[in-house]
């Protein structure tokens, strides 16, 4: 399995943000996206995950292979940690949430209502969801926000375990994850040039 | 004028967060609060600003001397930058928003609707409000979030100008502001000890 992206252009709020993005990722590899605030990392990841159509270009893998985790974790405050995970397991048709709980050291919290977790614990729950999906390509937008050092290490080893099973991971992040083996892609050079104002068509620009 | 805080205890969501906090700040001085996430900096600042009552202790200055700026900027998206500032000027009974606009280089944006600003520009507008209040004690919670380097320098010089006029500033922040002259208070040592579980009273602990 391989993820090949060629000449991708993405837009946010009607404005092209990135264009000409291309990379190639094979099974067992990870790609880290970097770039300043507002560069378009989130937009790119959402496009790859199939949440929005690309402006142009080609994504060489079905969106059904991807599992996406964005800025928000989609956690229901009134359900317990276990219930939250079990719900996603059932949606994705997988069984058993124990491995996911273990990977992020959530067993002691399993029965706690998710609303009573601290921000970092919530984030760990959000990441544990990725394990539960059973999908090969993880698309993660700033996964380590509000995690402390131990939890970041936990996360890195979860990603490594996933890669070792032949999975892939795409991550946007500002910090160092300790994933030395990952490729890095800086999106800044792909910033979309504003179209010429004479080109009065399509997007009226 | 002097701000003397003695033996202050503050609580958030019914749980004591900090206790025994004490410091002294004289006119023209600044105090930077530091501490890990969730230590209670925000709670402490809200208490000082009079938004919530302290659990115990004494704050030796009237809350009418303080101007507070929190995580949220209170910006109205449909009003222009100038209108936003003018509103606060009238509320605080001061005149003229020009100095504030200048201090944060907002003149070029004065007529722009505040909703169309980038995150950093919004933050600059939020900080310009402090200048407009005309109050001697600035209470600032993470003022530099989403500011770039130039804007941080702008902010530091605005604070210095305020101090030079005999004002005071209390700031909670994780980054280095370039305010070398400021005192630093780490709140971590003041963390409230959990009360003994046998103490079945008051807050039921």
């Amino acid at each position, binding site marked *: 399995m391989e993820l090949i992206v060629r000449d991708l252009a993405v837009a946010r709020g009607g404005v092209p943000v990135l264009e000409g993005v291309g990379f190639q990722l094979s099974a067992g590899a990870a790609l880290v996206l970097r770039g300043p605030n507002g560069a378009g990392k989130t937009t790119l990841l959402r496009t790859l995950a199939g949440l929005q159509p690309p402006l142009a270009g080609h994504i060489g893998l079905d969106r059904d292979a991807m599992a996406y985790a964005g800025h928000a974790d989609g956690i229901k405050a009134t359900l317990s940690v276990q219930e939250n995970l079990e719900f996603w397991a059932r949606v994705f048709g997988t069984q058993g949430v124990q491995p996911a709980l273990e990977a992020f050291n959530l067993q002691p919290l399993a029965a706690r209502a998710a609303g*009573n977790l601290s921000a970092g614990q919530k984030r760990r729950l959000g990441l544990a969801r990725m394990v539960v999906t059973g999908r090969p390509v993880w698309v993660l937008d700033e996964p380590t926000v509000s995690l402390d050092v131990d939890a970041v290490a936990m996360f890195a080893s979860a990603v490594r375990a996933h890669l070792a099973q032949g999975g892939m991971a795409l991550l946007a992040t500002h910090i160092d994850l300790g994933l030395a083996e990952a490729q890095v892609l800086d999106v800044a050079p792909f910033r979309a040039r504003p179209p010429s104002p004479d080109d009065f068509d399509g997007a009226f620009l | 004028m002097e701000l003397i805080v003695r033996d202050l205890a503050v609580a958030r*969501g*019914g749980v004591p967060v900090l206790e025994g906090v004490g410091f002294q700040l004289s006119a023209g001085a600044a105090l930077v609060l530091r501490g890990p996430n969730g230590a209670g900096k925000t709670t402490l600042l809200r208490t000082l600003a009079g938004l919530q009552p302290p659990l115990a202790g004494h704050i030796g200055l009237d809350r009418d001397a303080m101007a507070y700026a929190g995580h949220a900027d209170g910006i109205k998206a449909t009003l222009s930058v100038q209108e936003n500032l003018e509103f606060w000027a009238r509320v605080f009974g001061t005149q003229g928003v020009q100095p504030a606009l200048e201090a944060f280089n907002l003149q070029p944006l004065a007529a722009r609707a505040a909703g169309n600003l980038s995150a950093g520009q919004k933050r600059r507008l939020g900080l310009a409000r402090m200048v407009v209040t005309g109050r001697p004690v600035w209470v600032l919670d993470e003022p530099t979030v989403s500011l770039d380097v130039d804007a941080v320098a702008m902010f530091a010089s605005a604070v210095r100008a305020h101090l030079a006029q005999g004002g005071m500033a209390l700031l909670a922040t994780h980054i280095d502001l370039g305010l070398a002259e400021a005192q630093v208070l780490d709140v971590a040592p003041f963390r409230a000890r*959990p009360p003994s579980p046998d103490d079945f*009273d008051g807050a039921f*602990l």
Partner: protein
Amino acid sequence: MASIWEYANPKKFIETTDRLLPWLSVTALLCLVVGLVWGFFFTPDDYKQGSTVKIIYLHVPAALMAINAWMMMLVASLIWIVRRHHVSALAARAAAPVGAMMTVIALATGAIWGQPMWGTWWAWDPRLTSFLILFLFYLGYMALWSAIENDDTAADLTSVLCIVGSVFAVLSRYAVNFWNQGLHQGASLSLDKEENVADVFYHPLLVSIAGFVLLFVALVFLRTQTEIRARRMRALIARERLQ
């Protein structure tokens, strides 16, 4: 004799009520059984209302308790606002569902009674209408309690709601009176002997009312204990998070 406020200590409250509860519940049950059995089996039919008069042994005590429960909540709310004793706020919270249930019973028995007497389940009579409004107040009060996470905030807000609501409940009562003159009986439990219902009906009614009062007190004690424990549980969980 120690100050009454001593019982505002949650632990003390639980200890005291634990001792009282068995007695209370037994007497409540006894009064209820005696009152209702006496009323149901051993009273004659009214010459005008026939056997439906037996409904009075449920209807009137429930109606009384519905109002008194709100009164008790009002007092407890005031105590919380003035003296900030947590137990009183929790007692108000505990009483609300009981009061609401009493209101429902009064409404239901009244409606069932109205069918043979007035030929309709419901009429927009002032007494009936103000009861319906009281029920709405109970609903809102309980909904507000359960919507707010922070206990002290919830206690403050519900107390203010209870006070403001009481004022408006009284206002509504007058408004409703103005709006419609009703069918319902006047007060027959007044001290003036002339107006009272006949003694045959009166005595079992008193026993039944006593039963309802005792039941109410017992339930409020029990539920306040529960609220105290739940509150302590939340505090302990929060404390764990603190560490």
